[in-house]
């Protein structure tokens, strides 16, 4: 990112005491580089991306890009490339016309065809906007976002979910280029594999609570999981010998309460033992000591799996 004098500037995106819809008191800041928010739409990732892009006014708190609120400043929004959970194309007869209008709004002289061509989507140019599927609309929005020459922020909801229409290599390469050029690349991912492929630092949103990487592994004295299975007796017998499980309770029915000292170990051991005995688990519910501890533990688990998926992804010995 360079200013008019050619000096390099570092962009910063800041959420301050942000409350909106399901999001609760989010305080976080992001500088240049790739940042992945692990969580589902129900956790608030879609809302977070819309807030970051300045398309939604926060109910309380603020969202600032380099100290300016994108919601109320058109110039700040011009520096943002975005992809939302649901994309509505600009009203136009066909895709090329819709993209031309978007380019005109950005004040760019490029042609819509060049944008589509770069992303390998030239065949969409003549397609009617009304005939686009929601996924195609998102793919086109992603292609457009990635084509923007020097955005300060790319706020992208689940960019890898449209892979298949857009090439994954193209997406990852473009994101890496933008990140290296000093842009903030803020992506959400509901799948840990996607988060691993996107790379960068990972935080998590859990039911609207922001969990940054620093708070990902909190110590919890004791955790309990409520496990539903058709074969509780057999699973209880197996788990009673597992080293990471400190206790198993079965009060009849299909539910077991499994206790241990660390959530991730308990969960891992539970899954591994059930798999070894070919026992089907229908549901796992945390029986948390406190909401905060549980949320933090969930993020710890997510982080652990994320790290594992990431290391497996970069391991050269891993079979294809």
């Amino acid at each position, binding site marked *: 990112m360079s200013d008019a004098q050619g000096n390099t500037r570092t962009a910063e995106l800041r959420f301050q005491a942000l409350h909106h819809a399901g999001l609760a008191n989010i305080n976080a800041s992001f500088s240049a580089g790739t940042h992945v928010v692990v969580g589902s739409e129900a956790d608030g990732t879609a809302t977070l991306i819309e807030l970051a892009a300045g398309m939604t006014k926060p109910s309380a708190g603020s969202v600032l890009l380099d100290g300016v609120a994108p919601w109320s400043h058109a110039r700040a*929004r011009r520096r943002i490339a975005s992809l939302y959970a649901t994309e509505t194309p600009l009203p136009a007869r066909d895709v090329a016309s819709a993209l031309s209008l978007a380019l005109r709004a950005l004040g760019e002289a490029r042609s819509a065809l060049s944008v589509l061509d770069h992303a390998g989507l030239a065949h969409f140019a003549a397609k009617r906007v009304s005939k686009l599927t929601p996924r195609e609309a998102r793919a086109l929005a992603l292609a457009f976002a990635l084509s923007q020459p020097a955005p300060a922020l790319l706020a992208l909801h689940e960019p890898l979910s449209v892979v298949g229409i857009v090439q994954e290599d193209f997406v990852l390469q473009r994101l890496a280029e933008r990140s290296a050029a000093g842009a903030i690349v803020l992506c959400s991912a509901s799948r840990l594999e996607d988060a691993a492929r996107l790379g960068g630092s990972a935080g998590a949103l859990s039911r609207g609570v922001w969990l940054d990487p620093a708070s990902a592994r909190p110590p919890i004295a004791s955790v309990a999981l409520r496990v539903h299975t058709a074969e509780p007796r057999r699973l209880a017998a197996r788990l009673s010998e597992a080293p990471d499980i400190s206790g198993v309770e079965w009060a009849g029915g299909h539910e077991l309460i499994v206790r241990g000292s660390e959530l991730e170990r308990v969960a891992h051991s539970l899954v591994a033992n059930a798999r070894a005995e070919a026992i089907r688990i229908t549901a796992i519910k945390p029986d948390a000591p406190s909401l905060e501890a549980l949320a933090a533990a969930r993020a710890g688990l997510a982080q652990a799996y994320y790290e594992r998926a990431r290391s497996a992804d970069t391991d050269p010995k891993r079979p294809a």
Partner: protein
Amino acid sequence: MNDLRNGVAIARERMRGPSAPLVLGLSCVALFAVGVLESQSDAVSAPDDALVGAVFGIALPLLAYLVSERACDGTRLDRSVDCLARYGTNRRAALCGVLLVSALSSAFAGALLTVSALLGAHAPRSPTLLTDLRASVGIALVAGVVYALYFGASSLLGKRGGGRKWALIIDFVLGAGSSALAAPWPRGHLRNLLGGQPVIELSQASAWLALALIGVACATWSVARTVE
């Protein structure tokens, strides 16, 4: 200026499609029929009755409402330009573009409705037809613009632009009277211009002024209520 042009472009695109001309065409036919029926019952007062009752009383406000709804894509006026705002377009300028298109469309529709009703209400070679057309079409053009601004501004009330619906109802209910309660709404002043009962004894010149004030106030409010 570019942002205003983009606002015009999206509103124009939303107005496209066969349903808008179809509704307008059917309305014109219906109003022509109303004019003919009125002329058969009382040829002298037929033009006035058709204009005050069917055109300016029902068809024009309803059509302006539908035009506003469509130009705004069925949502609030400020949210209707979000699709451009994400690319750095100034919402206020884009909103003015949307208002411009809906005002011109409503004015055009109003003029056509008026012409249809008058052609039905007057005898084929009536000497007063041209004079009537000239005066009434002018009022219809202003009415279309004022209603478009009025419905645009009222759509800013409510999460999904529900204020627009309430504005239509309030105009129908309160605007029908002639007390001070009718003063803030376009209907009473339009009735005054057509030769009907004035609102709080205002002259016709004051009615023009009142309509202009309503239009300016609505446009100003729309811009002021919208963030950049």
